[in-house]
């Protein structure tokens, strides 16, 4: 800052005195897409000394002196804009466009801030204003595709539970603990707490990726750090901001199921495949005809359960009000918000009993951030936040998973409702459990309700110690973050839905009703049972000192931190952390940059003597663009910086969060003496898994090489990093300890995983006439590889996990559908030699080229359980049997290793549009069980393409069988590359189109008004819709019957006054 002021002073003194002063006075308001911008600098082009700073309402008044008739508006975080003053001179509206890549752009890093021009670490950040209108409840959902190095997966769209999982630069740990450290105003939050935060309260978000930026977090930094900074008040009159939004949610993918006629036809096809005689088929021609022409809607129902149960659109609304302002002594930011999301099922509950069994989520947020100037050198702050959440889910089955479940719902099992208005139960040969229909369950099944309260307080003070030495401050903070989640579950007296409420079967031939034999005649008493109470609280005490001073060309910064933290929850012993961190930075003329970071911190998760670790890192930068030779050669570069960082960071995420260093003795193993019957055995005690007193944290050696470039007058900026991380000392259970040891082996620090990749961002902004436009491409790639996990040498090399990525799926390799000729060949082989016959006898091959058959298929007599049209897999070890030894690594892990986002924006006067395309590549998805397997799942369109002798050449699905899940074709029993999809997707992730009304049109004291349309997950393209009907981010290796991710289209209005 000092330099900038100096710069201005120099320019002012050098200015020629003889300039025309035209004396035109210009007034107006500086805004961004969100609203007014207090603190922006407005000066006259050519006369930088003629400047004003906008007040809290964004207004300015400037008298022009020169002849350019042009204003220049600058503000950190926004593109500098020139505005030509034409005929209109008053009530001008000038709207700035955000630009995160300016030279002086600052990112919040640990306990301080870092400028783009002098940073040596790999840090990406975003101003929350850019994502404030994204219609999603969770801040992490809005970050996908916007930050290089950020990977996320949103596996559910359920209101209140739709937050994405996210990782920074992929995953490196063989254990579950790959989650980044989350800090909100320097206080650690959990994933759960983060998703409760209202984006309206957030100023900026940064992610720290390399050793140089994460080392000060020491034992907790190895998975990267996500830093959220909340908004604070600015000096000026109170500024009110109100935003009201309403939106419609709809599923990103609507699953289609076959109707009764199609399903019944396929049932017959499967039964025929199984050898059922034509006259014994479940559905005879008369049944099929009845289904086809719908002549018997109760005896032969054709119920479209999905459309009967689910809405096409559901409502969500979001309202925020914030007030900020202040004076020399006090500054404040106060915000309140209400967010509500409705669920996707129709309302079936009895209007009289007021029991809401639908999904919904409501959240209220309140935040008050106060800054007090106690005196000239002491600043105090008090931040208080509370959040209340209400989460409702249906009490019985999850509707989507029930819809998929063939054994519960299928189109011919029941009418939606009986002719006399009573509920039906599912009654067919495939629904022997006679469950009530889904609408009956939703009407009477009660609800689960969770109420959540979050409460956070932060009290702190900053003492300016310039009396000791200039640039020195001392900060103390005490923060308390807690949350409690209390859940209750209500339903009727008996838990089993079959016997809970009366349902009837209507016989259309005799026109009689039969009550479900197990059910009562009347609905029983409504009761509350089962409660859960989860809480967590986190007390954090920090004391740190910052130093920042320039001596001529030498600029020093420093940070010394002491902190302590205690985390409690309802289930575990308290976790304690304590540590010291030190950071020293130096730069010479902003040309040569050096930073050393370190932490000495520890946790009580490990044995005394092994609790504290030292984590050092350094970063260095070289700003070539400050060199004369570079300027001469490539004058278009305003910034060209190379930086490199290297260091070691830790992760204490012990598996199961247990005290793994400790040897325990457990109770179990009943045994008793004596001859009394029944005997009363006593509970034995036995030695549990050995402890390893030497166990310590995992370490991550991170190396990062990056380049930052700004060129074409800062219009184009590029940041690109390549990294190579090595996670070592990972917790693994050694696989090479012989069993003669006689007891479970403890974790040791020995695993090694490498993780390398790149991430970067290219941004460009410019204008064509009065149309400003910008584009930004973000790309992230991270690929890991298990180098060592001490696995037991597998029997066959294709089974080895080492060398593959973490969570690599294994499965069979699909060759083709068995032909009848191959079945015959295999049968002949087995009948001749027996399935267990060795291929070699006395060194001679006795059976050449056997057709590999699944291990189960040769039960009873020959391979009667295998048929033409079943999936044939490669017999990798050539033993004639397909079994677990024939599996190999197939596809990719489920977490994508490549992710990209492209933001395109344009603005013209008050109009603006911004679109984010986001996509992920290189991940694998498999759907199993109810999601795809016939007779487990309702019939889906792809089942029509099943293998039959006639369609063998074009089949896209194995032969149907009533026992599909028990055959070699089952994706759950025999995962293979037939079922694993190497997937990609591309989405129009978010879109924002708005119009800011001219200020002069605004009535009363309104100084800003914007109406906008925004959307989330608007369009999706992926490569597996022809096989699976799921959203591309669905959790792999499941039935894929989670609450479907939502597409949201949203209208909003924002007012400032």
């Amino acid at each position: 800052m000092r330099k900038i002021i100096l710069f201005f002073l120099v320019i002012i003194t050098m200015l020629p005195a003889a300039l025309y002063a035209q004396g035109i006075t210009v007034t107006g308001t500086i805004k961004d897409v969100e609203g007014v911008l207090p603190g922006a600098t407005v000066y006259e082009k050519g006369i930088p000394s003629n400047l004003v700073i906008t007040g809290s309402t964004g207004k300015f008044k400037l008298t022009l002196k020169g002849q350019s008739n042009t204003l220049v508006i600058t503000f950190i975080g926004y593109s500098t804009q020139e505005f030509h003053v034409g005929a209109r001179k008053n009530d001008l509206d000038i709207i700035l466009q955000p630009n995160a890549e300016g030279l002086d752009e600052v990112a919040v890093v640990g306990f301080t801030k870092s400028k783009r021009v002098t940073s040596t670490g790999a840090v990406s950040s975003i101003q929350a204003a850019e994502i404030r209108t994204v219609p999603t409840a969770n801040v992490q959902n809005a970050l996908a595709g916007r930050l290089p190095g950020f990977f996320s997966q949103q596996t559910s769209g359920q209101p209140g539970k739709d937050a994405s999982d996210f990782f920074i630069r992929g995953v490196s740990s063989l254990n579950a603990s790959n989650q980044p450290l989350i800090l909100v105003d320097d206080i650690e939050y959990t994933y759960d707490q983060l998703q409760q935060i209202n984006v309206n309260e957030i100023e900026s978000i940064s992610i720290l990726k390399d050793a140089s930026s994460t080392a000060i977090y020491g034992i907790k930094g190895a998975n990267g750090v996500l830093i959220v900074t909340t908004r604070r008040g600015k000096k000026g009159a109170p500024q009110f901001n109100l935003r009201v939004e309403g939106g419609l949610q709809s599923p990103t993918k609507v699953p289609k199921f076959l109707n009764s006629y199609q399903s019944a036809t396929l049932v017959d096809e499967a039964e025929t495949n199984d050898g059922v005689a034509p006259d014994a088929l479940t559905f005879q021609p008369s049944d099929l005809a009845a289904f086809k022409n719908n002549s018997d809607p109760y005896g032969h129902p054709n119920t479209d359960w999905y459309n009967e149960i689910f809405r096409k659109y559901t409502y969500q609304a979001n309202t925020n009000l914030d007030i900020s302002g202040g004076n020399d002594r006090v500054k404040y930011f106060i915000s309140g918000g209400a967010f509500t999301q409705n669920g996707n099922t129709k309302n079936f509950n009895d209007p009289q009993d007021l029991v809401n069994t639908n999904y919904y989520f409501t959240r209220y947020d309140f935040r008050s951030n106060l800054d007090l100037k106690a005196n000239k050198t002491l600043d105090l702050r008090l931040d208080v936040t509370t959040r209340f959440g209400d989460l409702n889910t249906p009490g019985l089955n999850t509707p989507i998973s029930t819809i998929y479940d063939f054994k519960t719902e299928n189109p011919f099992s029941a009418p939606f409702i009986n002719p006399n208005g009573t509920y039906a139960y599912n009654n067919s040969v495939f629904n022997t459990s006679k469950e009530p229909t889904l609408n009956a369950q939703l009407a009477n099944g009660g609800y689960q309700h969770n109420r959540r309260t979050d409460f956070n307080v932060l009290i702190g003070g900053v003492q300016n110690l310039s009396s000791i030495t200039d640039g020195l401050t001392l900060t103390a903070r005490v923060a308390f973050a807690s949350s409690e989640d209390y859940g209750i579950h209500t339903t009727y007296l008996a838990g089993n839905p079959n016997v809970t409420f009366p349902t009837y079967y209507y016989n259309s031939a005799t026109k009689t009703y039969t009550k479900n034999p197990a059910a009562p005649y009347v609905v029983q008493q409504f009761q509350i049972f089962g409660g859960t109470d989860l809480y967590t609280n986190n007390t954090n005490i920090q004391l740190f000192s910052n130093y920042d001073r320039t001596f001529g060309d030498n600029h020093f910064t420093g940070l010394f931190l002491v902190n302590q933290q205690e985390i409690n929850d309802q289930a575990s012993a308290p976790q304690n952390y304590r540590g010291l961190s030190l950071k020293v930075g130096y730069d010479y003329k902003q040309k040569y940059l050096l930073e050393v970071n370190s932490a000495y911190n520890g946790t009580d998760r490990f044995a005394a003597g092994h609790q504290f670790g030292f984590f050092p890192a350094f970063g260095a930068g070289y700003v070539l663009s400050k060199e004369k030779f570079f300027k001469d050669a490539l004058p278009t570069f305003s910034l060209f910086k190379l930086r490199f960082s290297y260091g070691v960071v830790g992760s204490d995420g012990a598996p199961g969060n247990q005290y793994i260093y400790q040897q325990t003795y457990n109770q179990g193993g009943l045994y008793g003496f004596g001859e009394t019957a029944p005997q009363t055995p006593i509970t034995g005690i036995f030695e549990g898994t050995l402890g390893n007193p030497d166990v310590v944290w995992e370490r991550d050696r991170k190396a990062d090489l990056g380049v930052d470039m700004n060129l074409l007058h800062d219009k184009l900026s590029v940041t690109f990093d390549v990294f190579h991380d090595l996670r070592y000392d990972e917790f693994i259970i050694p696989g090479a300890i012989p069993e003669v040891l006689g007891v479970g082996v403890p974790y040791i620090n020995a695993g090694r995983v490498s993780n390398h990749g790149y991430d970067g961002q290219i941004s460009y902004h410019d204008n064509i006439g009065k149309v400003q436009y910008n584009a930004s491409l973000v790309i992230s790639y991270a690929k890991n590889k298990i180098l060592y996990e001490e696995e037991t040498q597998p029997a066959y090399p294709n089974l080895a996990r080492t060398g593959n990525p973490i969570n690599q799926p294994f499965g069979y390799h699909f060759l083709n559908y068995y032909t009848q000729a191959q079945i015959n060949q295999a049968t002949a082989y087995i009948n001749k030699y027996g399935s267990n016959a060795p291929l070699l006898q006395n060194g001679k091959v006795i059976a050449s080229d056997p057709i590999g058959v699944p291990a189960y298929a040769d039960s009873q007599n020959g391979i009667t359980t295998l048929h033409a049209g079943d999936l044939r897999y490669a017999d990798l070890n050539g033993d004639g049997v397909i079994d677990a030894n024939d599996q190999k690594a197939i596809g990719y892990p489920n977490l994508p290793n490549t992710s990209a986002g492209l933001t395109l924006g344009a603005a013209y006067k008050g109009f603006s549009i911004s679109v984010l395309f986001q996509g992920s590549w290189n991940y694998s998805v498999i759907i199993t069980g109810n999601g795809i397997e016939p007779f487990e799942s309702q019939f889906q369109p792809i089942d029509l393409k099943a293998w039959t002798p006639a369609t063998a050449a074009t089949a896209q699905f194995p032969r149907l069988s009533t026992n599909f899940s028990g055959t070699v074709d089952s994706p759950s029993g025999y995962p293979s590359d037939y079922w694993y999809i190497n997937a990609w997707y591309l989405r129009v992730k978010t879109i924002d189109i708005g119009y800011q009304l001219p200020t002069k049109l605004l009535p009363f004291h309104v100084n800003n008004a914007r109406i906008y349309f925004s959307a989330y997950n608007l369009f999706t393209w992926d490569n597996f819709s022809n096989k699976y009907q799921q959203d591309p981010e669905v959790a792999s290796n499941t039935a894929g019957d989670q609450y479907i991710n939502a597409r949201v289209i949203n209208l909003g209005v924002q007012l400032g006054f």
Partner: protein
Amino acid sequence: MMKNYKIILLLVGAVSLVTACKKYETFPIAQITIDRVFDPRDSLGTNAYAFLENVYATMLNGHNRVGGDYLDAATDDAVSSAASSSNQVTQLSTDAYNSGTFADGAGDNVWANYYSGIRQANIFIANIGVVPVEATLPKHPGISMKYAWKNEARFLRAYFYFELVKRYGGVPLLGDKVYNVTDNLALPRNTFSDCINYIVSECNAIKGDSILQAPYASTANYGRVTNAAVLALKAKVLLYAASPLFNGTTLVKDAGTGQGPRNTTNAAIVGYPSADPNRWQLAASAAQDVINLGVFSLDQNGFQDIFLTQNNPELIFIRQGDNGYNVESNNGPIGFPSAVSKGVTSPTQNLVNAFPMISGLNINDPNGHYNPDSPYARRDPRLLYTVFVNGQQWLNTNLQLYQGGQSIPNSGVQQTISGYYLHKFMGHSEALNSYAAHSEDWVIFRYAEMLLDYAEAENEAVGPNAADYQVLKTIRGRAGIAAGSDGNYGIQSLSSITQDSLRSAIHNERRIEFAFEEQRFFDLRRWKVAPAYMDQQRLGLQLISNGQLTYNYVPILPAIFKINSFTPKQYLQPIPYGEVVKNPQMQQNPGW
């Protein structure tokens, strides 16, 4: 300015105060550590005793132990009703497995279980000394009960080693050492001779006063190790050591080299390289020691009663089981809605044919008057308590064991594939409508076995004599076989019987007396007679009821399984694949 320092000092003070007050939790207090298990202040020894109970619990309960089947379903006595290529006993029976096939506890892989037991026993032995147990031995009031406990742990450890040795040959002996992960665990296998000597010396060391003396002093002690159990273990170990498989082993030559890694097994590891007939004498006198205790006798309440009445005079050592009817639910005849069963075990016709007539004569003996149209009439009474046959009373019904009958409905549910169901070990549900709970203790040593062990060893050592001949008569007499006019229970007279004939008689007597007691699987191997029996077709009965009964005997093992398949490598079980991979010192067994 000074005022600010005060405020800051106050803040710093507050922070450091809060910091100073926090005590780090250095260990989680809720967990049991070893000094609470073996507690010098615990005069009752409560936790130490609980630890010992868990060592006992390591013993395997043989009821439906192997993948839900009896181990005997891997012999010629039975097949699993679930016989398929993924069925474990069927794999064992037909050589369809290898060292990597069976995970811990699957198949007959007991390696990890018993090494775990050995470790637990060693921990107990090493630590029990500090516990001041006040209780004393009933017959030796001066001796603290903890010495008995310690010897019980030593017995169990020796028993665990025997269970390993009879399957694998010589195994690594760990002594009293409780190993840690940091110790060298690449232990070589000890020789067979070392292992036998170790087990025997342990038995000799603990058989004295500081252990409970048989018979049980109180019913509360039923199930605990006594001096008799120690002697019985020693007798059995020596019997195995004297048997042809181990006594002068030719296994390495017979089985040849296999495909497994480090298949260079030393002959001394899998048995005694040279035969010594005197080992039979040692076995005989060890069995004689048990008999000479004079505290056991055959249960004269009948064959069935042995397994149902606890603490009957025949039981030497048992593994405690539930009080229930799991045996019935797993193995009983199917088709009873009030007493559901899985009918897992299908005893073979081969076994049925091994039971003599009530006269003691073989069914092929023309003087036995065996009637093929009424094959179960006038048979050894043990037959009908070993298997269920058609028409036998059960659950207030005459069993329908013909095709399409109540218990062989051929309706797709699992049913016997041999035409017989297992009856042994079951309670008295003949005249009940549902199963009644009963003791399901698993018998490890019983007096009848000591008698037959003695007879076998004595016959091998010195040939037929009055003592070993008498054993057979005693066993048969208790079984209910008629003594006959010559009082020889159908056996050739002592004066004319040869050593070979008596051996055959003893072998067959073991088969029918101990069916489903996990004897035959090992007996066939240690006698080195497995090919003669295991290579025969497993036959079953296909009974057709068509006004009259037609008895058809058919092969029951699905055609895909190899018969004529017994290979010499199967005499011993393979060392688990992982153990050989992890330990460069670990030699695989011949042929695996």
